[in-house]
């Protein structure tokens, strides 16, 4: 149905405005700072709709641009997309070549319009093991990183070619290497965190996987097992995933975080909050933090004093809401349609070999 609507004149304009308004609304509540996306289902979509596989990948790319636009409008600081798995090299040569060509084409477009990137303020980073990349692609990607490195507003991490195990091994190697040079180095979880590819990004808050597969497929494993991260699995295939679905996910996250203190909703385990806020230990049973959101707000701003409690109004309700996600916003909100560039693949081939 949405197909014929999109043929109306001015549809794009309306969509962009809607995204802006939605972004402004959702920004007044809790918003995830770092969103990871597993863009799965391009090939299945192509097969179902009887189009060529490369058409599917191309459509997936458009979806990504559109979804990322919404994410950045909503105040997400960092998005990490799973573009190409190391395991994807096991696919047919033609497909790998086509994906590489798509990546080259899109990144070259970005490089030619470097001033646009600057205007939109998106920093593009390529995560992954560069050894596996063909040299010509690697050169173009490096140039893109170089051109956008000074942008501050938001970050786009493109995982290309990436697997989480490779990332962990890489991190362990670097820690071991550092410890041989510096014998006093304390090796703990934060040391490994520091050497992960995502070390400059905020902690992962939300991981989205499309096409109804309940598997992580080697993506951001170390980051997403954290009790603070919520995993959302949607049934749509990636090219069929619309900003509207993304908006639903964001609203749901926001509601759950606000209401239950966890992006997934009510959990019987609130262990993570204690664990990760060890600097300011919160007693979850202190009677004041009866709602999840309050705990969330308190934990984000531990030094906020309690003096502002409004005793008169509904004193039996002890909810006090702090707002913190509403930073910045509204200034440079432009379209970023041409900005994020990447190939989009599904990452299923790694699962195949298992069975």
């Amino acid at each position, binding site marked *: 149905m949405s197909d014929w609507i999109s043929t109306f004149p001015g549809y794009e304009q309306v969509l962009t405005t809607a995204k802006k308004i939605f972004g402004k609304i959702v920004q007044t509540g809790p918003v995830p700072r770092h969103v990871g996306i597993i863009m799965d289902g391009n090939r299945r979509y192509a097969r179902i709709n009887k189009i060529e596989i490369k058409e599917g990948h191309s459509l997936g790319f458009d979806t990504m641009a559109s979804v990322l636009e919404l994410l950045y409008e909503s105040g997400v600081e960092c998005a990490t997309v799973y573009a190409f798995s190391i395991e994807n090299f096991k696919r047919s040569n033609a497909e790998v070549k086509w994906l590489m060509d798509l990546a080259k084409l899109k990144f070259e477009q970005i490089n030619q319009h470097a001033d646009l990137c600057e205007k939109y303020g998106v920093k593009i980073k390529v995560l992954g093991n560069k050894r596996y990349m063909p040299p010509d692609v690697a050169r173009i990607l490096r140039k893109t990183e170089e051109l956008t490195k000074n942008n501050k507003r938001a970050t786009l991490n493109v995982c290309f070619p990436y697997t989480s195990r490779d990332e962990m091994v890489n991190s362990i190697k670097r820690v071991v290497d550092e410890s041989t040079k510096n014998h006093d180095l304390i090796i703990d979880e934060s040391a490994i965190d520091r050497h992960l590819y995502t070390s400059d990004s905020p902690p992962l808050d939300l991981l989205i996987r499309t096409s109804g597969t309940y598997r992580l497929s080697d993506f951001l494993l170390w980051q997403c097992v954290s009790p603070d991260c919520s995993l959302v699995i949607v049934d749509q295939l990636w090219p069929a995933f619309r900003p509207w679905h993304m908006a639903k996910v964001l609203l749901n996250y926001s509601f759950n975080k606000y209401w239950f203190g966890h992006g997934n909703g009510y959990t019987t385990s609130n262990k993570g909050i204690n664990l990760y806020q060890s600097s300011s230990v919160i007693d979850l049973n202190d009677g004041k933090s009866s709602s999840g959101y309050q705990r969330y707000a308190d934990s984000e701003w531990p030094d906020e004093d309690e003096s502002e409690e*409004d005793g008169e109004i*509904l004193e039996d309700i002890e909810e006090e809401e702090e707002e913190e996600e509403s930073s910045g916003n509204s200034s440079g909100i432009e379209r970023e349609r041409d900005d994020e560039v990447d190939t989009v693949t599904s990452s299923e081939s790694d699962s195949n070999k298992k069975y």
Partner: protein
Amino acid sequence: MTTSKLADHVRSEANVHTSMHDISQEINVIDSSVDDDKLGHQPPNSIRYNGLIHMIMITINELFNVNKLKDRTKKQTESMLGLIQFYIYHFLLLFIYILITIYKKFQTIYRKFFIKFYTLIYHHNNSPQLIRDDVNKLNKLPKTLSCILDLKDKDDEMGGIDGLINQISELTAWTLSCGIPVLQIYEFNGKLITNKSLLTKLNYKISKNLAKYFGLNNLPNYSIKIPHENLIIFGPQNTSNSEIDLQIHLLSRIDGKPTIVELTKTMSELAINKELTIQDISIDLIDEELIELVGPEPDLLIYFGPNLDLQDFPPWHIRLTEIYWEPENYDVNYSILIRALQKYSNCVTNVGK
């Protein structure tokens, strides 16, 4: 550098036996009476507040709370216009929240009904034969099943250590009836692992529960393994020579990221002593070590809670694990297990394109 040597290093660092240590004899001597109160503070539960009236009242409170709003918007903009703008947008957001609350109420009712319905359809009736019949319809079974259990408040239904032990013993009986060879139990705090008298209790409960399912004469053989301590406990009547039908692995947070850190430490020591070069570290090496130190990669992970929370589950091990949880479910329930197994068996056919 042989691989077993690396794992041994990690273990000797942690003062753990380097060879598998059988404590079945030891623990049976210890008195099984244990005081729950001595186990320390248990993870708190949050109190659920999502009544509609409550929600509306908070919204009203929020609206009147102008001082607060000013404070909040300071970070955003100082101007009056910005304040009003923020006010409007936040009001809209709260309005959307109200709609979501109403929607979720109905969803909860629907899901609770749904779970009740499935609980009626699938019931084990303490009979391995019935479970076997349910499982025989499936075309694929996981080799390793992993379950995340919550240690609930003592006052809750099936709460406290006793509840946890009960849940594990039930799961043991079900997985044995299904014919799954390895069962991993992940509990964040690792309360069971650190206390030997609790292990005695667990062992006793499991064998008692198995007797209920299988009868006293043909009790299956099982072993309880604690990878982090490298300890193993055999069931009451079997010796280490007889074949094991089910291995139970008890995992906790310490088997996740901290074990990877321990491995890194060991490797860095070896690297400093020039016994290991950085080029030697590879995915295969670490995979082998972690399988040795923690256990196999689970094929299916079931979380018996209302909303998924991975709780620092060993990150290396969930690469291709199928994850299952049922919204609005709070119990360890046979119908959840069987639905998870059904989903797992269906997924395999979907994946093979």
